[in-house]
């Protein structure tokens, strides 16, 4: 089957800083792809490029086979309606209640009546286990609840693809495990393609079909199935799954060495 998202030779970054260098991979349909890598390796930047927020400096991002940066903004917004995105911090609109937040995409993009929309919102909130909090404002929610509300909003339009930026970061292990189960259900029952940025090895073991790994310099280290990743020979991949501490950055030296070095 054709890839849902294709990233081709992507170079991306902010101003003069290049964060991602020559990254290429495919996201296959109906699978859960996890993107892993050390902090600061450009995972969030990669997501921003995929969802149309950061134009690449070079290379292409194809979503459903279409280059999202060569189409005009309105067409792009249309394509993006089929993609749900869960922000790391939730990014709920703070002036709207949970219900209004989840209803927002439905109100903007469908002609459904208010009562149907509220029904859908209730379904989605129940799905993420948040049906009692519909009337609260985001400021009144705990971190985990906020994330689940944001997930409900990302799922509002039954997207074909769901992207999650560190969904379980800052959550207790039980809630995190619940979220993993939910992602599996979404893939199997609602036939979604899911891409997840995560650091949690137990979570990767449980949900990942495919793994994409980035290195500190923003280059692609590995792309393949979870089994292939576990058997991979590359040091960085092995070290990640064995939870070994990363090497000290190569461009820094101990102070002692610096002081003793002659000018």
């Amino acid at each position, binding site marked *: 089957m054709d890839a849902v998202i294709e990233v081709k030779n992507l170079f991306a970054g902010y101003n003069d800083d290049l964060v991602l260098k020559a990254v290429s991979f495919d996201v296959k349909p109906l699978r859960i792809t996890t993107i892993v890598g050390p902090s600061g390796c450009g995972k969030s930047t990669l997501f921003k490029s995929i969802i149309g927020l950061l134009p690449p400096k070079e290379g292409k991002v194809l979503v459903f086979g279409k280059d999202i940066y060569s189409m005009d903004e309105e067409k792009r917004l249309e394509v993006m309606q089929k993609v749900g995105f869960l922000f790391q911090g939730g990014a709920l609109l*703070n002036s709207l209640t949970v219900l209004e937040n989840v209803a*927002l995409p439905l109100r903007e993009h469908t002609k459904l009546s208010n009562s149907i929309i509220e029904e859908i919102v209730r379904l989605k909130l129940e799905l993420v286990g948040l049906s009692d909090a519909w009337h609260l404002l985001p400021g009144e929610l705990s971190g985990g609840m906020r994330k689940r509300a944001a997930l409900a*909003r990302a799922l509002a339009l039954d997207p074909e693809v769901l992207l999650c930026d560190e969904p379980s970061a800052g959550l207790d292990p039980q809630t995190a495990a619940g979220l993993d189960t939910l992602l599996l259900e979404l893939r199997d029952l609602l036939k979604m393609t899911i891409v997840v940025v995560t650091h949690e090895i137990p979570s990767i073991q449980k949900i990942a079909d495919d793994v994409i790994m980035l290195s500190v310099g923003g280059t692609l280290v590995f792309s393949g199935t979870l089994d292939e990743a576990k058997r991979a020979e590359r040091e960085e991949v092995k070290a990640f799954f064995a939870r070994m501490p990363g090497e000290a950055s190569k461009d820094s030296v101990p102070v002692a060495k*610096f002081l003793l070095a002659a000018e």
Partner: protein
Amino acid sequence: MPKTDPNSGGVRLECGGELTFSTVSAWEREAQQILKQVKAGDRVILDLSGCEKMDSAGVAFCLNLKRRIAQKDCLFEVLPPKGGQASEVLQVFRIKKPKAVEKEKEGFLERAGSLAYAFANACLEMLTLFVDTLYYTVKGAFSKKTPVRWAHVVEQMVRIGLESLGIIALLSFLVGLTVALQSAYQLRRFGANIYIADLLGVAMTREMGPLMTAILVAGRSGASIAAEISTMVITEEVDALRTMGIHPVRFLVVPRFLGATIMQPLLTVTSDLLGIMGGFVIAVFYLGLGINAFTKELIEALFIKDLLTGLVKSVAFAWIIVFVAAFRGFRVRGGAEGVGLATTASVVQAIFMVIAADAFFSLLFYFGD
């Protein structure tokens, strides 16, 4: 203590004992003295062989000394600690290798160039915002797919218009009263009392009404628009809108734009009326004019054109306020501080542009007559 080294002719700083948060300030003073003494080419030795205890302040002191001595073109040598905690600390802390190519300092031309580029970029962004807003407003008025969110427009009309009404009415009344009182004193000397009606009518409708309203709305609603949008940018809410396929300009700017465009002229008319009423009080009670005389003179002095001039201005001011606030909001950088800066910049820039535009309009209408 700094010592002169008889063997090498260099200066030696013996840092024995502790080099920690509590002692580094004292060593700093010693280092200062050395830095004053040495000349280019001299040798400076930092002797840490007697140092037993060091913390991050000590490490920072050593690094800083090395850098400052390098700036004086002196030779720097370190005698490392003889094992122990100090030597471990120097291994634990790491620093980035100095970059081989230092970024060249920007020359005057480069600086002027990058400033001009940034300015052109900002102008382009503002223009894009303006065009996007007009596009989504016109499109929203006719399209069924992405209609204008009228409920939000009404909400903004209440926030921008209705909630400002009280303060604008009160201030306009007081300003009308003050202007009338100041003028009355002069007019009285010439026995030209009746002209207070002409003066107030024209001044309020053409200048004071639109300008005062705009300044108040810029401070009140402009600031709130800038703060709201910039906070939403920082908390990624604006990005979230984009990922949901909702254009932020359509969602955030259009309702505020329409709200301000509708309410600003109404506020201005209120301000005109209340300002004239303020003057009327002075005219009647201080100058002793009759109610009928004042009204008759006012109607004769005021032309529809005066009123329209004020209203045209008020719409232009509303646009300036909304666009400057939205522009500042979307351009925010950083966290809470960024929001503060965006809000301040929005108010200052909006007031400046309103007054500049007012001057422009005055010239236009004056010479256009």
